[in-house]
């Protein structure tokens, strides 16, 4: 029972990971990161159930909050990027290298 949740969360996590380096659009990349966070949320909840205590739930909530904050920041960055170059393709932003 629990294991299915875990398997699911792991799958989600892996999807997120693949998304991060497979996709080039900033939005998509960031959504993949969010996906990973949610995967860990799922895991927390599942484990909380397993362990019969509330810490997991607490953490899940906190993670959501943090994710929201990060999202806000990310959007700000998106706006900046778009303002400056009009593009969101991460490959465009490789001025800093070498």
């Amino acid at each position, binding site marked *: 029972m629990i294991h299915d949740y*875990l398997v699911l*969360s792991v799958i989600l*996590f892996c999807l*997120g990971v693949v998304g*991060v380096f497979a996709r080039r659009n*900033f939005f998509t*990349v*960031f959504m993949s*990161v969010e996906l*990973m*966070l949610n*995967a*860990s*949320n799922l*895991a*927390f909840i*599942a*484990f909380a159930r*397993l*362990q019969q*205590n509330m*810490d*997991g739930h*607490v*953490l899940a909530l*906190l*993670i959501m909050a*943090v994710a929201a*904050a*990060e999202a806000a*920041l*990310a959007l700000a*960055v998106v706006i*900046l*990027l778009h303002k*400056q*170059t009009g593009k969101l393709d*991460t490959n465009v*932003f*490789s*001025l*800093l*290298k*070498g």
Partner: protein
Amino acid sequence: MTNDFMLLFPVILVSLGAIGLMLAATSRCVQIEQAAWACGGLFGFAFLVQLAATLTGDQALYSSLFNDILVVSPFSKAASLVILGCGLFTVCSSLSYFKKNNFSSTEYYSLLLFAASGMLLLTMTRELISTFIALEIMSLAIYILVGYDRDNVLSTEAVMKYLILGAFAGAFLTMGSAFVYGAAGSTKFALIGNFVATTGFLSNPAILAGSFFILVAFLFKAAAFPFHAWVLDVYDGASMPITGFMATALKTAIFAVFANFLLADSGLQQGWVTFLFYIAILSMFMGNFIAIGQNSLKRMLAASGIVHSGYLLIGLVALGSQPVPGSVVAFYLAAYAAGTLGIFSALSYLSGKGEQWKNFDDFKGLAKTKPYTAFAISIFLLSMAGIPPTAGFMGKLYIILAAIQTGQITLAVLGIVSSIVAMWYYLRLIVTMYFHAPERSFAEECPSRIGTVSTLVLVLCVFAISLYPIAL
């Protein structure tokens, strides 16, 4: 409970200050300068308080507060001292930096304070939830600070990269802590430690994977080898003072929590020691090789930061042998912080408008026109290179001693070899500054008094730390 607050006083001070400044920023009447001074003053005050606590405070090795969520240990005290000091000098260098670049505002300083409070928390956390929160408080503030120059494409790019990868790593942290929590049933390091001690480390895949993921997250923040790639670009994009702040305070905080995490139970530390071993070696050498090729000072320093993470990892590997756990790491962090901050505070007023001068060749013949600055920079470089009688040397000596004492002779020797390799790019700048004819008159920089003063103070620190090494 009161005692707890007493011990937490610096953190509280800093975070309240942050909020206060943030509120103050809304009103027009507060000048940026005033904010800066306030911020600096706050850091200074907190520093003194912390110092007093360290010197006079109870010598109990661990005094845990909020039923074991946070712990104040000599190590954490030392680390927070370093962090507060970094904050102070960052403010100073920011002051001189913003004489040339005008994108500062009151929030800038409050964000500094936020980041600092996150770091301070991070040094004390003994529990996964609070670790995560502290980490994020710190990171979010830093993200913003990195991208603070909104009109600058580079800094935007930097923050973009940092944000993605940081969040990526953060996700690993959460996943890892999820697994660990799932296995051990608690998020407190101590209990996890007990669990590992009882059930064993390798037996439980959840613990294994979880601690593994957490490790990855830490290594990312510490910019250790396979997870180092972001550091050059981010440092390069961020503004000088922030780069300095990240290079020192952030690294301190991360290694503090890292050490706590590993200290909590020897089981984990033993389990990961082989990995840390290889990662340390790889970080040192890759860092060096990256640094050789760099022409930009900032990138060189970033790369050398990777190398120093390598050394600190040696310190973590040799954690067991230290009289006071983590003392070596803390000392090395202090030494490294002094040197790095010094260079960045010098660069803050040398790099000119929009950081137009940050390559090696831009500093040809600096010694002719600005002998004292050149001298100071040389001292900092020598400290980072670990030449006596600077602080860096003592740090290196301690690390080597600890490594050998734990029987990690290979590690010690490789560390030495890598520092030999590192000599070149530190000396390179000195050679450029002293032995080449000046190509431009460094007239346009007016070294703000505060900048020079802070640099000078840091020079003194470099020597003071080595000559009177606080017996941690």
